[in-house]
């Protein structure tokens, strides 16, 4: 019975959600402190937030900034990673620099970048771009490096130019690896988005979160956390769907997220 239940796609995560909510409800009842309202209180606050046009606009702006940063990162990081994977010189040029940037907390650059670019969308988008680029570069590099040399030799023997080789052979061959990077990058984009808004505090989801905290609207705090959590899970699911649709031919790559905010 349990085997058949878990075979239904989407059911185990759904059950896990209900289980976590029930656990939260129980913990809140047992603890009985104002800072941890029961799950049903936070859930009943959700419609109020989602129907408030200002809150909705804030959330949409956050998503817009994240998408712009993400697409820019994709446009630059994938070619760079592929070039690094195919040329020793390019790899030697960029590797030490990337290694140095890797442990810098990107969202912590916010105050400095805000000095230069003001407090608008630009610093937040830039920080998201920086955070997302690194894992995508890393995975595109690993993917391009692992391409079978013989395939490239055959292509060259048949008269394919290097540019076409990169586009028709290296890119598709590296695509499964690139998707690992994209998935990590997505989680990072969300983290950086929320953190940058928590640090700059004038717009976005992170700002709603801390405003409710300051005004002691604890139900709203938890409802906003639920919205962000749902966003993270939903986007991750979408990337996974896209991957299995584009890469039905490849074996699924299970890999741990190599990434940092």
């Amino acid at each position, binding site marked *: 019975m*349990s085997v058949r239940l*878990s075979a239904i796609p989407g059911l*185990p995560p759904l*059950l*896990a*959600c209900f*289980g*976590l909510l029930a656990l939260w409800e129980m913990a809140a009842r047992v*603890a009985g*402190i104002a*800072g941890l309202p029961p799950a049903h209180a936070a859930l009943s606050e959700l419609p109020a937030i989602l129907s408030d046009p200002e809150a909705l606009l804030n959330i949409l702006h956050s998503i817009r900034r994240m998408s712009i940063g993400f697409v820019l990162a994709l446009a630059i990081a994938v070619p760079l990673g592929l070039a690094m994977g195919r040329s*020793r*010189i390019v790899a*030697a*040029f*960029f*590797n*030490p*620099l990337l*290694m*140095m940037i*890797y*442990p*810098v*907390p990107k*969202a*912590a650059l916010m*105050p*400095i970048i805000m*000095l*230069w670019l003001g407090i608008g969308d630009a610093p937040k988008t830039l920080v998201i771009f920086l955070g997302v680029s690194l894992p995508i570069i890393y995975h595109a590099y690993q993917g391009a490096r692992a391409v079978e040399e013989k395939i490239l030799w055959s292509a060259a023997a048949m008269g394919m130019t290097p540019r076409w080789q990169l586009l028709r052979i290296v890119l598709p061959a590296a695509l499964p690896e690139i998707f690992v990077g994209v998935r990590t990058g*997505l*989680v990072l984009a*969300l*983290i950086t*988005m*929320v*953190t940058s808004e*928590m*640090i700059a505090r004038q717009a976005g989801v992170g700002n709603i*979160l*801390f405003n409710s*905290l300051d005004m002691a609207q*604890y139900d709203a*705090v*938890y409802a*906003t*956390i639920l919205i*962000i*959590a749902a966003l*993270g*899970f939903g*986007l*991750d699911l979408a990337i996974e769907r896209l991957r299995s649709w584009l890469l039905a031919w490849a074996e699924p790559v*299970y890999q*741990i*997220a*190599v990434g*940092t*905010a």
Partner: protein
Amino acid sequence: MTRRRACEVLVGVLPIALILGLWHGLATSGMAPPSLLPAPRAVFSRLVEQFANPAYLQHAAITLFRLFAGFAIAVGIGVTGGVVATGSAAFGALLRPVVRVLAPVPKVALYPALILVLGFEHASKIALVAADAVFPILLATYQGTSAVEPKLVWSALAAGASRRNALFNVVLPAALPSVLTGCRIGLVISCIVVFLAEMITSTNGLGHLLIYAARSFETVDMFVPLITISLLGLVLNASFNALQRWLLLGFPQEASR
């Protein structure tokens, strides 16, 4: 071969030198006022000065304490959870969907809730670090332990080892490379998260120093904690690599990547 290696190192130093040169040029030519971009020499001499300052080291020590406390909790929960999920099918079936739901959630969003429940002091920051670092360690341990050659376990069981014994004395050591990779990723994540948590709300630690400097427009002092935490990340990563190489002596080469 060594000449080629030297060439590559030289090529790699080039962009870093270029950036430092550009920074120096912008700052000293007066195109960027020092209040926006201090000269690199000012930043690095301040960094050296601060490393001899006991008050600064105190802040760094607080940050390090939170980092290691959170990381230790994450390693404890992650490794135990991963091993038990491999050992017991029921627990694995329970854990997998929960991780599937929780892993893509940006954990910083939980920070306000952690503040409300655990207070503004150490506990909420340590909890956030642990929450962020636990998932890579858990996933790496689970993947590592479930990929262990079953014949090894069967041999141990046939030789009279109990299931628990086989799990901790055969499966866990065999999965060590994967576990250590997860731990290294968790360590760098801890380093970053502790800094961010201190930036969002704190009265001490390196992250607080950055925000404090930003509020009083002390640009030089904004760069110093940022460079410190990045150096800390590099040093921790390098020392973990050394530890990993030592622990994995005798493992096949590609395992210790």
